[in-house]
């Protein structure tokens, strides 16, 4: 059975790109455009993995990740972001992120990161 993945990114272009990369190997359970929607979608679907942008309106990805990982012990969140700052990476890890991919990415990078976080 395919693993279930949700995508949270405020960019429609990037959500489409991630969907195209993942849809052959994973079930995409839904998409969110901001941190609030991301938390709601996670609670609704409890996916195996959440792909989470950092810079999003209303509520950013680090805050959303923090809430998700506080409420779900086994939650797996991969930050998928244009921000490659060391301090931001530390904040993401502190919030409970399991992985971190810097945009722009190629399909193999994304699949490798997911496999590292939830081995098939």
């Amino acid at each position, binding site marked *: 059975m395919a693993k279930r993945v949700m995508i949270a990114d405020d960019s429609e272009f990037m959500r489409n790109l991630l969907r195209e990369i993942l849809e052959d190997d994973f079930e995409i359970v839904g998409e969110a455009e901001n941190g609030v929607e991301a938390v709601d979608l996670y609670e609704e679907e409890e996916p195996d993995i959440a792909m989470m942008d950092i810079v*999003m309106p209303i509520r950013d990805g680090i805050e959303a990740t923090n809430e998700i990982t506080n409420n779900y012990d086994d939650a797996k969140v991969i930050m998928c972001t244009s921000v490659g700052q060391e301090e931001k990476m530390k904040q993401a890890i502190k919030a409970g992120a399991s992985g971190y991919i810097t945009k722009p990415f190629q399909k193999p990078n994304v699949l490798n990161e997911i496999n590292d976080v939830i081995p098939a």
Partner: protein
Amino acid sequence: MKVDIRELGQFNHLASQGAERAAESLSQLAGVQMGVEVTDVSLVTETVLAETFTDRSFVGVEVGLEGGLEGETVLAFERERAMKLQDLLMGVTDNGDAEERLAKSSVTELGNIMIGGFIDGWANHLDTAINMTPPRYTEANGPRILPDQAIEAAKKHGVFLFESKLTGMDTDLDFSLYMLPEYRQFVQLLSGNEQGNQIPVNRLSTFEQLAKEGAGNAADQIGMMTGLDTNVDVSRLRFVPLAGVPKQVGNDQFVGVVFELTGLPSGYLVVLFGEESATTIANAMMPGGGAEDEIGEMTEGAIKELGNIMTSGFIDGWANVLQTSIEHSPPNFVHDMGESIMSPVVGKLGQQQDYAFVIDSTIEIDGNKGQCDIYALPNERELARALSALPARD
């Protein structure tokens, strides 16, 4: 408040590295090879912003910065290039027929990724986090492509403007990445230490104003000697890596004169005309109109003479305000590609410094029919010393 020239150089270097990362991101995402032409920083006024951006229509992506570095960043494309980029990006996602909204989203996300790459090095250097606001797609004419806060700051006390020009290697896809850090915080970051080579920040504005007046004098002198209408199109005081200056002048053929300056500050001043502009001017300077269609002895003599007079007009104002004496050498006539003319100048100055304040002024002659570019490259340390010695005005 003082700025340390070494710190300014360090931040210019960070911006340059950031622009390289931004170019790599674009190459990966859109499949086009990009290079960074040059990164410079200048303290600009509202007038300079207007001159720099005027008469151009832009598509931009704006990202605000908060935390360790506050300010604004803007990726600005001239409209037709943005459309071309959208086409490239939509090809990547196989959504060639997607609606305009998705096309805008693609450019916005590209801006987000490029600005993220640009900022990372700054955050790591400052050992802090820089928060980015979500990217905003904008369309505007002229300086309105920049955030309102930056324009307001430029009105009040000037704003530091970092500009990285990115160029498509095999496609016509040139555009610029601008960063405008919040003035007061950035000046604090630039303060360095007492042992550094420091200039009171307001003296940079003074010098920029001097450069503008010098360009105005030079334009008037061309007008007086030729009877042609002249106008200073743009004049900016930029802080640039010396190595990038020849590339910035480019590979077009120029006719002009190079002067070595001695005194405080020493340095070089280069006056360049396009070939056609040079013959137009030379002919206009001759009684009866002259008749030389190519660059010959008459043009050489005329350009040397005009260069002499323009240079005096340009530097006299510096000497008067800095209360120093500046002399210039006899004119060295040059007729070559811009890059070849500037390389030896930069080579000589580069023995003492890696970065330079370059005054870059463009004078329009007879409407759009001719153009004159003036590049002044003073010795950085001597300029800092002379500016620091000015009576305090803060």
